[in-house]
């Protein structure tokens, strides 16, 4: 099932949901259902994997495609959800917007934790991401081949739009090696954006959403409300990024990429996220999920946001790789 982009996150939620909604979650398990603890610990560990130096890998085109389009789509989708679709829950709106525009499940976890979304909202966002990732991973390379789009443009397009990181690698590699390199680089730059998005959402929620309308919030109040795990997440990211740059490329690849990250943080982070998803499943009632589907609003939001994402990413990739920086494209 991994080939369809269905990994441990989906199975963990699914089996948790099945147990809790059929035979019921055993009482002796309940003390271990600590969703918030697992998510926050996993996110701080994920912080170590967010290395800011990677954003310069492909120069200005990469920054524009991943760091300009993505926040634009995120903010536009959130406003669209509030003003047009009228999603009742702001946290659900933000979680789906981040999940769709940044990088799927990992962005959904970070954003949901930063804005204190409900576990059912995270489940819904993850579900959408998995379904659309599977479809886009199969459909996009086919469309690119069908219309005869240049593979570098296609790679940049897929890297900026397919939610799941794994699916980007699969779709890019299926197209061509050059498409894989561009798609993977764009996605990597976009992955790094998670830290900035989580921080921005946490600040926005404390300063603007969780306050009385029209009332000015003092800095101390923002500090008290601010989810402190985000600081751990950002600190881990900054420390590892600085050490990475200080050590230089070759030593960093060996010590940070292959040592600290792949040998330690990635493994523990995976287990913490897995436990978090099992906990979400074990503590969720199907009936609680039903109300979120009312009027198909989350679906409309996802489809509209993703359509806008597809158009804007393609346009920006074309402008950057073929009009402004064709010499970079020629060298890839």
């Amino acid at each position: 099932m991994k080939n369809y982009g269905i990994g441990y996150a989906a199975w963990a939620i699914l089996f948790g949901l099945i147990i809790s909604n059929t035979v019921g979650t055993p009482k002796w398990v309940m003390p271990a259902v600590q969703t918030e603890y697992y998510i926050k610990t996993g996110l701080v560990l994920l912080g170590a994997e967010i290395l800011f130096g990677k954003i310069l890998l492909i120069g200005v085109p990469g920054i524009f495609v991943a760091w300009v389009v993505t926040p634009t789509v995120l903010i536009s989708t959130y406003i669209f959800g509030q003003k047009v679709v009228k999603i009742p829950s702001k946290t659900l709106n933000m979680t789906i917007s981040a999940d769709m525009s940044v990088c799927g499940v990992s962005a959904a976890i970070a954003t949901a934790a930063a804005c204190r979304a409900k576990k059912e909202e995270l489940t819904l966002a993850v579900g959408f991401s998995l379904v659309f990732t599977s479809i886009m991973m199969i459909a996009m390379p086919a469309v690119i081949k069908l219309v005869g789009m240049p593979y570098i443009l296609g790679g940049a397009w897929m890297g900026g739009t397919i939610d799941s990181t794994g699916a980007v690698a699969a779709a890019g590699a299926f197209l061509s090696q050059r498409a894989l390199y561009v798609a993977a680089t764009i996605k990597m730059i976009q992955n790094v954006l998670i830290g900035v998005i989580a921080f921005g959402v946490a600040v926005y929620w404390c300063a603007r959403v969780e306050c009385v309308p029209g009332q000015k919030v003092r800095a101390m109040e923002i500090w008290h409300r601010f989810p402190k795990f985000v600081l751990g997440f950002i600190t881990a990211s900054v420390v590892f990024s600085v050490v990475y740059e200080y050590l230089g490329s070759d030593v960093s690849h060996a010590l940070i990429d292959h040592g600290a990250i792949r040998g330690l943080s990635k493994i523990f982070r995976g287990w913490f996220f897995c436990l978090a998803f099992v906990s979400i499943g074990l503590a969720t009632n199907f009936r609680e999920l039903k109300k979120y589907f009312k009027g198909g609003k989350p679906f409309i939001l996802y489809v509209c946001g993703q359509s806008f994402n597809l158009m804007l990413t393609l346009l920006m990739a074309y402008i950057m790789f073929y009009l402004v920086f064709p010499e970079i494209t020629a060298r890839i």
Partner: protein
Amino acid sequence: METTISQRGVGTSLGLRRFLPLAWRWARLFLCIFIIWAFMFIAAPWVEKTPAVAPIICFIDENYIDASALYYTEIEEFFEAEIHMENTMNFAPRGHSGSL
């Protein structure tokens, strides 16, 4: 002591009444497991054989790509792409002006 429900017109014992919801819950669990099994071993392999899906699924399988990875650090192809991009940006010929 077992209380009969017949007084309430149900016509079954309390023991059976307790047993039925429990049996129903276990039946639902097995039903869910059966649906997952059917999805994994009947529906997914069938979809895999369709002309639109078969090429990419075969490709992913043959190249051991983890299409379900959540983050770039979980995929070998991303490290390969990073090294390629670094080398391209640093060492590839830049033309006469020497500028990007």
